Structure formats: structure tokens, C-alpha cells
């Protein structure tokens, strides 16, 4: 019962946060870039329910718009990483042999590198920007999916329905596409849920270090970085973007956890 409550709360939070980000231009009371130096570092007012930052920009509007960046980076990173991981893991698991060895050593090498460090180093070299952040996060992000897909394919390959398809003369592309992929979807979706949470945190980390989106575009990480300088006088600058980020990651983790438990209990 408690698990169900957590799960549905997680789903509800995700729907709310996604809707808030998607419809930010309609929901936000102000343009997130509009400056008003006469109203800088305000805490709360009727005009600005969450206050304003050092340039008098509305925190509520910036938090809503910041979510768009986090979700965009998260979804793009997961979609790209999952596609690359799916192709490489399928090739590796289905064909085996030297190709499997080669691809898995590449995965080993990349996984031996701390992911966040490589992302920081790469964005430091390439310069800030959304495309660089997504590229940096995908560089290692695909390896987890590749390993998962390979493992699943190795176990599925020995099952009767795949052997039967093989005996009937199905081509590898058809076997992978029609028989293996549908069975891979549940574990992949769970991994993608955790991957989305990890990508959102990583984007926040990069933006916090000034390596993510370029100012003045708001993102939760860059808002936290801006607010850090005013902790003594305006702690609210870090409270709301941090809370939004934490709630998103928490909701994703809760949903991922519950789905994983359900899949585990169904697996014989």
C-alpha cells in the first residue's frame, strides 16, 4: 500500500513537473530574462511569490523555464544513449565472438572513467552549451544500456522462441527487431528512468560549475550557482531551483524503483 502510494505520488509529481516545464511560457508570470534592478534580491511579494534574483528576475518564472532545460537535456541524453547502447549491445550480444570482445572492452574502458569527470573535462574543452552537455553525457551514458542489452540478448538468444525463429530462417535483423527487442523493453524502460534522473543531476552539476547552458538562459543548476554567491543575504535563490531538481530526481527514482521491483517479482 505504502509502495503504491509512493509510486502514484511519483507519477503525479512527474506529470506536474513536466507540465510546469512544458507550459512554462503560459504559466510563468514574467519573461525569465526580464531584468528589474529596482526589485533585486526580493524575498516574497504578491508580484513575485518566490522572490527575485540579483538582477530582479522572477524566480518562479526562471524555475519553470529552468525545468525545460533539465528535461530537454535529460530526455535527449537518454534517447541518444539508449539508441547507441541498443545498437552496440544488440550487435555484441547477438553476434558474439571478436565483435563482442572488442565492443565490451570499449565499454570497460569508458566505464572505468568517472562519468561526471569526463563530462566536466569534455565540456571544459569544448566550451559551454546544450549540445556539448548532451554530447558529454552521452559519451559514457550509452555504455550502461549496451551492457544491459547484451546481457539480456545473451539470455534471450537461448530461449525456444528465438531458436525457432532462427530455425525458420529469419534474418538476424528480423530476430532482433521482432523477437528480442520487445522483450528488452521493460528492463530498458527502467534503466532509462534512472538514466533520466542521472542526466538531470549531471546537467545540474555542469551548469552549477558554469559549464552547462550559457547565461542568461535559466537552468536549475545555473540558478543554484548564481544563488550560491548570495547565500548570506538571499538563501531563497538556491531553495526553489534545488527543490524542483530534487523532487524531479526523487520522483524518477521512486517510479524506477517500483517498476524494478515489479519486474523482479514477475521474473521467474
Amino acid at each position, binding site marked *: 500500500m505504502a509502495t503504491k502510494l509512493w509510486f502514484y505520488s511519483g507519477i503525479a509529481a512527474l506529470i506536474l513537473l513536466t507540465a510546469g516545464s512544458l507550459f512554462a511560457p503560459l504559466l510563468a508570470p514574467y519573461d525569465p530574462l526580464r531584468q528589474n534592478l529596482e526589485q533585486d534580491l526580493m524575498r516574497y511579494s504578491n508580484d513575485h511569490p518566490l522572490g527575485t534574483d540579483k538582477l530582479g528576475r522572477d524566480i518562479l518564472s526562471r524555475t519553470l523555464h529552468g525545468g525545460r532545460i533539465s528535461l530537454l537535456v535529460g530526455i535527449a541524453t537518454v534517447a541518444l544513449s539508449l539508441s547507441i547502447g541498443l545498437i552496440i549491445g544488440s550487435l555484441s550480444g547477438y553476434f558474439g565472438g571478436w565483435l563482442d570482445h572488442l565492443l565490451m572492452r570499449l565499454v570497460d574502458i569508458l566505464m572505468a*572513467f*568517472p562519468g*561526471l569527470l569526463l563530462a566536466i573535462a*569534455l565540456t*571544459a574543452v*569544448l566550451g559551454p552549451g546544450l549540445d556539448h552537455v548532451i554530447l558529454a553525457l552521452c559519451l559514457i551514458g550509452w555504455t550502461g544500456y549496451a551492457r544491459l542489452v547484451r546481457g539480456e540478448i545473451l539470455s534471450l538468444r537461448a530461449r525456444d522462441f528465438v531458436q525457432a525463429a532462427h530455425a525458420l530462417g529469419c534474418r538476424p535483423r528480423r530476430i532482433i527487431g521482432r523477437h528480442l527487442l520487445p522483450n528488452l523493453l521493460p528492463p530498458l524502460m527502467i534503466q532509462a528512468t534512472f538514466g533520466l534522473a542521472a542526466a538531470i543531476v549531471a546537467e545540474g552539476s555542469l551548469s*552549477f*560549475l558554469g559549464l552547462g547552458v550559457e547565461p542568461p538562459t535559466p537552468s536549475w543548476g545555473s540558478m*543554484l550557482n548564481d544563488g550560491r554567491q548570495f547565500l548570506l543575504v538571499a538563501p531563497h535563490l538556491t531553495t526553489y531551483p534545488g527543490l524542483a*531538481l530534487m523532487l524531479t530526481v526523487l520522483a524518477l527514482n521512486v517510479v524506477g524503483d517500483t517498476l524494478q521491483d515489479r519486474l523482479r517479482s514477475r521474473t521467474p
Partner: protein
Amino acid sequence: MKRFLLQRLLLFLPTLLGAVSLVFVLIHLIPGDPVEVMLGETASAADKEALRRSLGFDRPLAAQYRAFLVNLASGDLGRSLYEPAGVGEIIRSRLPATLQLALCAMIAALVISFPLATLAAIRRGGWIDRAALTFSLLGLSLPNFWLGPLLMIVFSIELGWTPVSGRGGFDHLVLPAITLGLGMSAILVRILRASLLQVIDQDYVQTARAKGLPEKQIWLKHVLRNASLSVVTIMSLQFGGLLAGSLITETIFSWPGIGRLTVQAIQTRDYPLVQGCVLVIAISYVVINFATDLLYKLIDPRVSYGD
């Protein structure tokens, strides 16, 4: 054991070479002329040429790679653009601070997770179990770049219990260690609880209980000792992650370690220093992973990795 060692070494060496090569490639990915990016457009042609020669950029890529590996093998990490000391020397001076912080973060993680996971396993399904799992979920969802400022606001600014930033006595260490260690403690609670629950059901625990051994002794001698195996692996693997995570925590608390040094080097575009820092963290990470493999085999001889 010999075969196991050889097998792991055969995997370790290409991984290490791969990680080192990746760091070498990084500096060559700078768009445009890397020397101009480092010195700025206004630098004189003579200065640019001198830096190009000193970094070896005037030589073919293969020769640069060879020189990079030879220098690395002899411990030479190059020279910083702005500081007279060599990159290796600068990193060595910052390393103790990072190691101190990472070790304290590990201790903080252990202090939090061990009692919590043990109580959760003893009272399985009870409120403390649910609280432990909730803590774990929250700990995994709290990014350290938010947790750090949050702790700072509460304990340094509002309550005045700890210093805001910098390195000094024990009180300087508390907040950075918790910020860095909380994620690890969240993982440890999960792993240790699952491990304890698995061990509780084992035959030897049932036997110990059947022969009338006191519950305290069963937990200390049989359950906790065997469940700790998984903790050793996770802690070793997470230690590498702590080094990477130190970039953010050290920046928040102005902790003078390698993490902050890396971020400062990125901000000043001191790429040889960035390269050196990334290299040291990456090599530490790979070596720690390798050592964990060996350690695990030593602790638990059943580990085979298919050999």
C-alpha cells in the same frame, strides 16, 4: 590465484591505457587553435609559438602521444600556464586535502549507514526499515550541489555551528564530508540491508540460532561479518566516485583540494593543469577498481569472474 591475477592485469592494463589516451585526446578536441584559446586572441605571435613548442603541439600527433606516455611514466605531468611549479608538484600539494575529505566522507557514510541498515534488517518491514529506505531514496535524490549550500545555510549561517568554508580543524570538515558522503551512505544502506537480509536466511545462521547462540553473537560473528563483503566492494568503487564528486563539494566549501584546483584550472583555461588533474583522478579511479577486484578475491575466495 596467479591465473586470476594475470587475467585481471590483462584487463587492467588496456583499461588504464584507454583512460590515459582519452585524457590525451581531450586537449586536442579544443575547437580552433588550442594555443589561442589558452592565451587569448591578444597574445603575441611569439608567445603563442613558444607555448605551442612547449606543449609539443608543433609535432605530429603520434610523436606527441609517445612523448605524453613517456613523460607520464616518469611522473612528468607538464607545466602549468600560470604557476611556476610543475603540474605534478601542484597536484601533490593539493592531494592530501582531497584524500582527507574523501576519507572523512567515507567514514561519515559508514557511521550513518551501518547502524541504519542493521536496524532496518533486524526490524524488517517495521517503521525503521521504511525510514531507512526513505532515507536512502532521499539521499540518492539530493544532488550535492544543492545539499552543500543547504547545509551551509542551516549549520553555518543560521546556527553558526560550523565554519562556512575553507580547510582547518575538524569543524571545517563536517559539512563537506557529509555533503560528499551522503550519496554513498544512501547506496550503502540499500546494499547492506539487502546483504544482511540475504545472510539472515542462510543455513549457517539458522544453525547458529538452533544451537542456542545468543542473538548478539549471531549478528556480530555471522551476519554482519559476511554481509560486510558487499560493503567493501561498494566502498572501494565509490571511493573513485568520491574523487570525481570532490570537484563540486570542494568548490562549494572552498576546500583546497584537487577538485577545486580542477575547477579553477578550467575557469582560467589552464588546460595542461586540467589535463593533469583529470589524469590523476582517472588513474586513481582505475587503480582503485583494480585493487577492489583483487581485494574481493582475497576476502572471498569464491569469487571467480569466470576463471
